């Protein structure tokens, strides 16, 4: 196996071995299996090849097949950029206008979730805010507890089914189901438990000999802390999701939106024209560094997934056509017309998820290596963020529009 892989590596460049050759090989195998299933002469041919005792002939046929597949893989890898463009939604305007609203609606839903979470966070802030006019929840409970001990000394009728206990239990159930705990629900529980604290002596056990009031007060304290943490972490999660999924401009496809996040980040953060400077930035990343390898692996992985997606879709198209042309029967038609598109869509979604990783790495590359690019362009490094934004903007104008801009060069003195 190792020898075979080494031989393959020698024959086919590694840049197309994983992203294009293996998917193409799989494509040929799966089509061969379909032909074997449905076509008798091909089946006879395949059996003849498999039964060949002469190793020379078998090796010759295997060699010819691998060369043919490698050539197709090479041709297909040249199409990858076009395929990626199509999947990113670079289509005629009428198609963009038709498909974009779906993506915009996704964006709006996400923004709505962020907005709702913000509202919960603000309300929770008012709940835990400590001002004389509106005492925080902890002080309200402490006051109620003191009042209860003072006015109802030795009396405790609080049980697990009291009103306050029920309200706290409701919040507990929300936590178990990983649902949002908002201000209203939490406040209701606090108000209910406050009343119970005012009406009972917390230091006295109830008729069953339990300190249930203390237990529920502790539970409520933990739940308030949890609610605040949950709202904060949800805020981070939703904002990360928004930044990883959508750029400034909305594209008509999931993949297009992920692609836009890179340009939006570069532009918003540094006024850096990603499309223009990316190839230049790649040149300054040290080839042997771990980061360059990680970036290359992520790119290879994405291309592999794109190839799998396209070839599965192509397989599906071919066999849907063959099923209709040959009137192959319902079972066969259903198999290719359902399994093919579903499988291609699964590949696509996996590719989108992977593209998010790659986009993150690309943003990291901009963060880490942009000053190296400036150095290699012999341009003085900026002093602050504002100057940097202006500098990248000037550079973009100079390189893209050939405008004359005031940019200072900085040449290292030769040793």
């Amino acid at each position: 196996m190792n020898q075979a892989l080494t031989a393959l590596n020698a024959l086919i460049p590694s840049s197309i071995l994983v992203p294009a050759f293996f998917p193409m090989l799989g494509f040929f195998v799966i089509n061969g299996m379909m032909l074997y299933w449905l076509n008798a002469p091909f089946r006879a041919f395949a059996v003849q090849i498999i039964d060949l005792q002469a190793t020379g002939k078998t090796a010759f046929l295997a060699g010819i097949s691998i060369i043919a597949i490698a050539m197709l893989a090479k041709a297909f890898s040249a199409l990858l950029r076009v395929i990626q463009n199509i999947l990113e939604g670079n289509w005629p305007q009428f198609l963009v206008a038709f498909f974009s609203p779906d993506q915009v609606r996704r964006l709006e839903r996400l923004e709505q979730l962020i907005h709702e979470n913000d509202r919960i966070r603000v309300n929770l802030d008012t709940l835990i805010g400590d001002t004389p006019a509106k005492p925080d929840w902890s002080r309200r409970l402490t006051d109620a507890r003191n009042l209860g001990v003072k006015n109802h000394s030795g009396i405790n009728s609080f049980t697990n089914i009291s009103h306050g206990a029920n309200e706290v239990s409701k919040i507990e159930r929300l936590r178990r189901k990983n649902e949002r705990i908002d201000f209203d629900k939490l406040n209701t529980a606090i108000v209910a438990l406050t009343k119970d604290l005012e009406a009972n002596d917390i230091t006295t056990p109830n008729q069953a000999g339990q300190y249930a009031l203390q237990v529920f007060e502790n539970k409520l304290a933990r739940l308030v802390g949890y609610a605040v943490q949950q709202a904060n972490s949800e805020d981070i999660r939703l904002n990360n999701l928004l930044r990883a999924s959508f750029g400034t401009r909305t594209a008509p496809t999931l993949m297009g939106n992920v692609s836009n996040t890179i340009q939006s980040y570069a532009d918003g953060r540094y006024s850096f024209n990603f499309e223009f400077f990316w190839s230049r930035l790649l040149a300054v990343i040290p080839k042997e560094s771990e980061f360059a390898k990680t970036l290359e692996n992520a790119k290879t992985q994405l291309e592999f997934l794109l190839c799998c997606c396209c070839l599965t879709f192509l397989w599906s198209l071919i066999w849907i056509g063959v099923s209709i042309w040959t009137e192959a029967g319902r079972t066969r038609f259903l198999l290719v017309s359902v399994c093919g598109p579903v499988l291609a869509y699964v590949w696509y979604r996996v590719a989108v998820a992977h593209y998010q990783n790659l986009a993150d790495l690309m943003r990291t590359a901009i963060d880490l290596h942009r000053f190296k690019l400036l150095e290699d362009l012999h341009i003085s490094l900026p002093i602050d963020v504002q100057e940097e934004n202006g500098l990248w903007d000037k550079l973009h104008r100079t390189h893209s529009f050939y405008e004359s801009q005031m940019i200072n060069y900085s040449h290292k003195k030769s040793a």
Partner: protein
Amino acid sequence: MLGSWFLVVRELITNRSQQIIIFAAYALFVVYMYEIYLDGPNQRTETYIATRQLKRNHMIRIDDFGLPKAGVASWGWFLPNPDSLEGLYVAKKDIEVGNGIDLSSLQKLPGPLNDPNRRLASIPLEKQPELVGFLDSDVQVEVVHESTVLAANARVHAILCTKKDAASCYVLLDLSKEDEMTITQKRILDSKKLYVRLATTAQH
């Protein structure tokens, strides 16, 4: 009623539920193909065509059948493996040239004799493997011991082969009771000198 459908359609289009529209269009295509266009057997199967007349109890050989002349089966689609037919016997009735050969018209072993007064006897073709190509059901042969004709009016019932090799075959003969007894006796005493020859050859 129509108005509410219009509202639903307008909602789908104006609310930009493109994924639903595309999914629905594709589902409609699949359902149309499944229910109307491909209205037939769940899995289409085709048959090979007989290249010569195949008599009852004939053992099928690879050159007895070929691809149909027209349709997708002429490209080999949906045909079974030729191996799956080879070695089977034509059951019940003869298959005419150009007729399809499907598995339902074949059986694993030759059928029985129809006449209760006739008997079957087998002669090995170990020393005459070339005869396998000439002997077929209903062909008239003579059974000879050294130079003595033991049965002049024998008919081939079927050819039986245990392997693909012609030397492993036997000819199953349809004989009168007397001939069958004579041949059985000779076979017990001296089977090595027992052989068959085509009746026409004998005449020449």
